[in-house]
């Protein structure tokens, strides 16, 4: 059967699959779009899903795989085109410096978190960008812990931001704790890689643990400051190493 004939004979789900393929970034679609569609045809030919249940299972797996591929490729493209990977180090340093400065001010003034919200807002954007860049960068050395932590921390920073914007303190607290867990997991992931300085990875883990014990109304406010310095250390390492050495995800 020629390709033209095959196109004419395509079922509705197969045509929908072809339409959804167009959502892939153009470079990926150009390189692998035909191959993805061809594999679908090969599987249809070999597996011959006959019953309604078999067809439903077949198309559910095909579409879920395609949607996942589109999402990951788009995310990767976004990070690459915005040069997030390249700027992940400076972002971490800026975020860390703002965080450390803001929290030091809060600890001295004893005014609570309210007084430093705008600074934390910018720091959270920097952390989120850096964590997402780390998560998306990819590679083969696969401490999944690091990948999960980075992605989790990046998303958590967004929740944290949502809390700040909406003044929903439960959301803010949820995001903050998720950011702490994400940062600690990222630190553990970097530690297990052994390609990134142990000191900066360890500092991020310890500082994340200290942040859990922070209280913004008394002397315990100082416990939030090292988190900023740990991010500065991580940012320094990211800035001075090649992109290849930060491989946390498959």
């Amino acid at each position, binding site marked *: 059967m020629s390709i033209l004939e095959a196109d004419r004979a395509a079922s509705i789900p197969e045509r929908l699959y072809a339409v959804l393929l167009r959502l892939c970034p153009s470079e990926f679609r150009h390189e692998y779009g035909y*191959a993805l569609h*061809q594999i679908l045809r090969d599987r249809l030919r070999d597996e011959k899903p006959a019953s309604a249940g078999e067809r439903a299972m077949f198309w559910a797996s095909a579409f879920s*795989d395609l949607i996942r*591929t589109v999402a*990951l490729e788009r995310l990767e493209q976004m990070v690459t085109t915005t040069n997030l990977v390249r700027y992940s180090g400076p972002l971490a340093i800026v975020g860390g410096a703002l965080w450390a400065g803001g929290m030091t001010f809060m600890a001295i003034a004893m005014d609570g978190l309210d007084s430093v919200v705008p600074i934390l807002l910018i720091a959270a954007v920097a952390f989120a960008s850096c964590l997402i860049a780390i998560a998306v960068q*990819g590679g*083969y050395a*696969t401490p999944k812990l690091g990948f999960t932590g980075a992605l989790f921390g990046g998303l958590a920073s967004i929740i944290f931001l949502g809390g700040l914007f909406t003044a929903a303190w439960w959301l803010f607290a949820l995001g903050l704790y998720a950011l702490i867990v994400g940062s600690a997991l990222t630190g553990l992931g970097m530690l297990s890689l052994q390609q990134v300085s142990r000191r900066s990875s360890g500092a991020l883990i310890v500082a994340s643990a200290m942040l859990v014990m922070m209280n913004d109304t008394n002397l315990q406010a100082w416990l939030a400051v090292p988190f900023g310095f740990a991010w500065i250390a991580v940012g320094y390492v990211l800035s001075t190493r090649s992109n290849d050495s930060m491989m946390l995800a*498959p």
Partner: protein
Amino acid sequence: MNRSPTDLLPLSPAVMHILLALAAGERHGYAIMREVDELSAGAMRLAAGTLYRSIKKMLEDGLIETSDERPDPELDDERRRYYRLTPFGLQVLSAEAQRLGRLVDAAQRRTNQPVFTAKLGDVS
């Protein structure tokens, strides 16, 4: 940048299986999927998207390359792309196999019995 094969370890299961499938000779994407299915006795089913995202990364890292030799268009779709291992890819596969071998040895020593025998015993 010169990389040592061990720099890329540990490999993800998808990459390990693709390298293993290509160690037997060059193949196109769907043939790789079927080979992986056979090699793992159905335990590892590569999705098409995962396969090509892995292939993209492996090409970038020099583990595999596209083959210039085209099959006879009468026998196969000439638009299919064939892939094969590079010498570096073979080194990485070998290094990962050695790493996994050491891990299995360690597991056998710790459990005081061959890992695979223990697994078979559990099933029966």
